[in-house]
């Protein structure tokens, strides 16, 4: 062990800087001890105990900077002394001016403060057990809430929505994936142009679908309020559907109202339709799979699927007869029959089943309903009737529609709209089954979704076709893209990627389902 010392006369450093430099030296190889101190008597006293007090150090004055190292050999000591110069110099380098003085806010209060006046909305996507508390704080601070989190208890949902109603605020959720407020996409939502239609939806993908389909008819939206899948259950009583509906009825920019939900419980349906009756604004209602009669009685326009709901709402907004819109859709369907007959020729004997692999729950549900109407019974992990539940969600048998966004697939994993891995694996799995005729996909773009979901799907589609062709088969891929031309991923580009890979791309999920249904309609 050798001790080497440098004295720098008249150099002053803060003692904490010096401690830090010493720390840096101690971390160097071969350095057993190091002291970087001002030459005060007290410091010299400390150096005695560490055997660093050489005669030079003893002679140093309180204004002298003492750098003393005890190292295993000469090179290590020399390296440490030169390193000390670098470290000391570095300590005087200031960070670039204009650095961020603002620490990231760690509380809601601090975040609100950092934004200044007129904060009006909070997006909540923390784990379910904390979500209600966070949402309540937002309401108490007068903010509208977009509540993406799931696993919020029904009791909490009711309490939050009652509090919100009292304060004249919206709670969009829980488990609301989507909302578009003032044409700003919240959560999983699309860039939709301004227009006269206001939407309230109890289904995330339902809201996305109708808001994406209407612009294709040249019609935009005012607001699209997602209220969460449980809002129209009788426990919650449709609190937010009613509040949203009232708000749109009162909104001068909204000329047509579109409501989207699975069929509500009858008491809630009654309340909602009673509220519809109070307004003279045309109201289009889609209770997916529900009875159209009560809707028509209330003066609203009933529709059967999302494509029709969007087309009818758009037609009303454009001052056209909704019946014409329906006729257009039927005519289009007629053309699918011809296409389907052509496609069917590609199938080998034994290829007979529909395999729908969904990322959007409402698309999965809609497809089952449409195929059921076409006389095709489809099993699902999210079935339209109990007896149609798949025995094993991971293994397809017969016609199936798998909702890959269901909890069983998403525990510990990202939602399939963000992470395509699981669906891609399933596409390949289905391709290996000689009975698979049609693989059916929904591709959802917009904010929140994967940057290139079509591109990801195409990877698996190519692999699947290669497997099928090697076995002398061809699989018919049918898909629709839910999105708009203004979405970051670009609707046209996503559709083109699928078409280039040989996928039949239809404008809507309903249209795609009908084409697939006709292919299978032997």
């Amino acid at each position, binding site marked *: 062990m050798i001790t080497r010392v440098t004295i720098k006369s008249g150099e002053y450093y803060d003692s*904490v800087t010096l401690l830090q430099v010493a720390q840096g030296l101690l971390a160097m190889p071969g350095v057993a001890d190091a002291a970087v101190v001002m030459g005060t008597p*007290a410091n010299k006293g400390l150096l005695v105990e*560490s055997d660093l007090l050489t005669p030079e150090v003893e002679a140093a004055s309180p204004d002298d900077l003492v750098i003393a190292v005890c190292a295993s050999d000469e090179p290590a000591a020399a390296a440490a002394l030169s390193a000390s110069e670098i470290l000391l110099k570095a300590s005087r380098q200031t960070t670039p001016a204009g650095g961020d003085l603002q620490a990231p806010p760690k509380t809601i209060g601090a975040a609100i403060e950092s934004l200044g006046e007129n904060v*009006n909305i*909070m*997006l909540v996507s923390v784990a379910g057990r904390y979500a209600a508390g966070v949402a309540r704080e937002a309401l108490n601070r007068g*903010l*509208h809430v977009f509540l993406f989190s799931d696993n919020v208890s029904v009791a909490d949902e009711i309490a939050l929505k009652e509090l919100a109603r009292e304060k004249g605020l919206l709670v969009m959720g829980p488990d609301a994936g989507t909302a578009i*407020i003032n044409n700003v996409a919240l959560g999983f939502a699309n860039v939709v142009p301004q227009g006269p239609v206001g939407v309230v939806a109890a289904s995330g993908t339902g809201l996305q679908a109708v808001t994406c389909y209407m612009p294709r008819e040249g019609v935009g939206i005012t607001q699209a309020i997602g209220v969460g899948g449980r809002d129209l259950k009788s426990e919650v009583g449709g609190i937010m559907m009613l509040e949203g509906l009232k708000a749109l009825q009162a909104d001068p920019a909204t000329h047509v109202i579109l409501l989207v939900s699975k069929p509500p419980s009858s008491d809630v349906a009654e309340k909602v339709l009673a509220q519809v009756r109070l307004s003279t604004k045309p109201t289009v209602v889609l209770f997916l799979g529900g009875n159209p009669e009560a809707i028509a009685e209330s003066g609203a326009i009933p529709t059967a699927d999302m494509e029709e709901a969007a087309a009818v709402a758009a037609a009303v907004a454009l001052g056209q007869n909704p019946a014409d819109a329906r006729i257009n859709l039927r005519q289009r369907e007629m053309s699918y029959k011809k296409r389907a007959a052509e496609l069917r020729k590609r199938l080998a004997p034994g290829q007979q089943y529909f395999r729908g692999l969904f990322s959007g729950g409402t698309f999965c549900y809609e497809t089952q309903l449409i195929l059921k109407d076409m006389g095709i019974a489809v099993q699902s992990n999210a079935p339209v009737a109990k007896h149609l539940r798949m025995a094993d969600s991971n293994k397809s048998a017969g016609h199936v529609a798998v909702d890959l966004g269901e909890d069983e697939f998403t525990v510990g994993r990202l939602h399939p709209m963000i992470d395509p891995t699981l669906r891609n694996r399933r596409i390949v799995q289905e391709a290996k089954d000689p009975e698979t005729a049609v693989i059916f996909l929904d591709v959802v773009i917009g904010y929140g979704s994967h940057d290139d979901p079509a591109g990801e799907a195409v990877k698996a589609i190519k692999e699947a076709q290669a497997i099928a062709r090697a076995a002398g088969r061809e699989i018919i891929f049918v898909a629709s893209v839910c999105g708009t031309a203004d979405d970051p991923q670009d609707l046209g580009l996503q559709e083109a990627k699928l078409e280039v890979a040989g996928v039949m791309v239809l404008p809507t999920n309903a249209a795609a389902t009908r084409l697939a249904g006709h292919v299978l309609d032997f």
Partner: protein
Amino acid sequence: MPVQELFGQPLKAVNVGLESFAASLEDQGIAVAHVDWRPPLEGYIELTYTASGAAIDAANSAAIERIRKGRPLLVGMGIARDVIPGMGEHRILHAGPPIGWDRMCGPMRGAVMGAAVYEGWAASYAEAAEMAAAGAFAFDPCHHHHAVGPMAGIISPSMPVFMIRNDTYGNVTYATQNEGLGKVLRYGAYGDAVLAHLKWMEQDLYPALVRALELTGPIDLRSLIAQALHMGDEVHNRNRAATSLLFRQLTPAILQTSSNEIALKVLKFIDSNDHFFLNLSMPAVKSMLEVAEGMEGCTLVTVMARNGTDFGIRVASMPDQWFIAPAPMVQGLWLPGFSEKDANPDIGDSAITETGGVGGFAMAAAPAIVKFVGGDSSLALSVTQEMYQITAGEHEFFTAPVLNFRGTPLGIDVRKVMATGILPFINTGIAHKEPGVGMVGAGLVRAPKKCFEDAFKALKELEYT
């Protein structure tokens, strides 16, 4: 903002949870603040009212007002046995929550042994240890006697103490004279040199200061602290400016009232000891805080203190209870020859500074100090800004220039700590774990969450809702 007003208004959003949602909003040109959110601590619920229906927020605001209005003056000095209430003859006061010899850490035992020999109760350190083990001395927390002590915080009957009067409310607090750095009693060092220094402080320093203070009259510590915060101190781990300011105030009086020989020694001592003011900032802040003790419905922390074994806090509405947890280890930098393995867990009453809105809470005013943890000056800013999120108010007189002279964060609200999971930040020195060694480094530490969880549970048991 009612729904109708939301429609058509520019969105201004707060995002809690998935950061990508905030990015999407930014991409659409929307003003959004993403919250660096963390879950509340175990057992948190919203507490708004006391059992009798009084609003907790109102109680806390009233407490903040009382604390802010406090004006600590150094009014004089005395011998502990004569001036500290309940001190008595064979009592030893120590830092932190109550503890007996059996559970005392090394440095506190070392300081007790030193004090026993200093008092003449024991002839040797070994004998002092035996006597302590046999229960010959009564131990009590400084905080039970309106006193505070840094590190081991030992106050024995013969030690001279500063007397600080909160001029607004009349309460008086106490602390010993700071010994300087290196081998000193408060870091657990004992031995003849340590005791000789203590004797010098008792026989030369103390009388000189008493004489000087008679001439100067009361010294306004609130004003000194306020100035020091504008000169790079946070008055816990950095007291260089405050000590210098005090030195300026005392020097003429010391020269006027002491012999040249004494005056020279005293002034050299104060000048060489950057921490001299610590033993004034601590009781000053203590005197400001203790006026909140006993306020019904107040959920603010009035004491954070450590004895090197346990970390304890006290809450205004439950002034006699300690909520304790094992004292944490301090992350820091080490003096030459020492490392982490030599360190004792966190120790000392000096966290009273953080409790009262200075120290770590005022780090934004003392950027130089961040080098204790190897960070850059932005750490100092972020620590202070983080602490605003768990405090109920801000100081009026203590301000941070870099934050545009915003008052430093004051009054740790147990409820906010629970709700945010943000634990108070403390700037502190590190003692060697063995008796008799002394200081080994300095660093930063956070108060343990268990203290706050237990205090919160007690609030719930008081039927706060």
